[in-house]
């Protein structure tokens, strides 16, 4: 049961991704049910910051479906032949996601507010790690963005995430 609680806590950020994705994806009915299953770090990250809504949708669906398929295939492969595979750590694959997130972060780092939010969020998450259950550090970091958005009424130009929605509107 503790595991289920941890999973739920880890899943809360997917709700935040859903908030950002809903307008770009514009899905209803059964497609929304399917899309919801594919809302994860990777698919959300690949949808954000695209030049147009169709590109964002392409990023979301291809990434979501690719991760879903390969994740499950790899799980089967791992369960079936664990001993014959070399460990992901040996191949340095555990740092691949960090590097990928960094690369996705880079184009958004324009303006002082972006930098202060990024640095504060990273610090909050790292400092909270030893003291809070899994999943919580990232949520606390999300609060940083909330606080900055409420306080800093300054000239924050919405990043290109917003652009596709406007372009998409009739």
């Amino acid at each position, binding site marked *: 049961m503790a595991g289920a609680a941890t999973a739920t806590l880890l899943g809360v950020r*997917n709700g935040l991704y859903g908030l950002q994705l809903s307008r770009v994806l514009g899905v209803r009915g059964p497609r929304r049910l399917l899309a919801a299953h594919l809302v994860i770090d990777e698919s959300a990250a690949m949808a954000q910051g695209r030049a147009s809504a169709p590109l964002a949708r392409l990023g979301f669906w291809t990434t979501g479906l690719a991760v879903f398929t390969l994740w499950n295939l790899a799980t089967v492969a791992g369960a079936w032949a664990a001993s014959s595979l070399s460990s992901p750590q040996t191949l340095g694959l555990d740092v691949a996601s*960090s590097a990928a997130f960094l690369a996705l972060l880079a184009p958004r780092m324009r303006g002082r507010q972006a930098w202060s939010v990024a640095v504060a969020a990273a610090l909050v998450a790292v400092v909270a790690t030893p003291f809070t259950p899994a999943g919580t550090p990232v949520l606390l970091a999300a609060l940083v963005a909330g606080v900055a958005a409420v306080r800093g009424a300054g000239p924050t130009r919405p990043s290109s995430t917003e652009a596709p929605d406007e372009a998409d509107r009739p």
Partner: protein
Amino acid sequence: MTTLWTAVLLGALACYAIKLAGLSVPARVLESPRVGRIGALLPIALLAALTATQTFATAQRLTIDARAAGLAVALVAVLLRAPFLVVVVLAAGTTALLRLL
């Protein structure tokens, strides 16, 4: 065994419900300027936090290991405007090489 499966199913259900709830918030709510600002800053905070924790945390312990070197190389590659895949491969390669030594 039954308890275990109940927990797994409950966890899965909760995770799915959260995602669906996020996608189902009416567009009207998302159009206020304040929510728009949060929308612009949220990915920055989440990506920065994920980058930091996946590099420096092992479960709930903080460590500085070969991953930090991999991330440093990734940072240089990003600053040099290397393509996405090159950044990821360089980081993984650096970390793997350091572990080999």
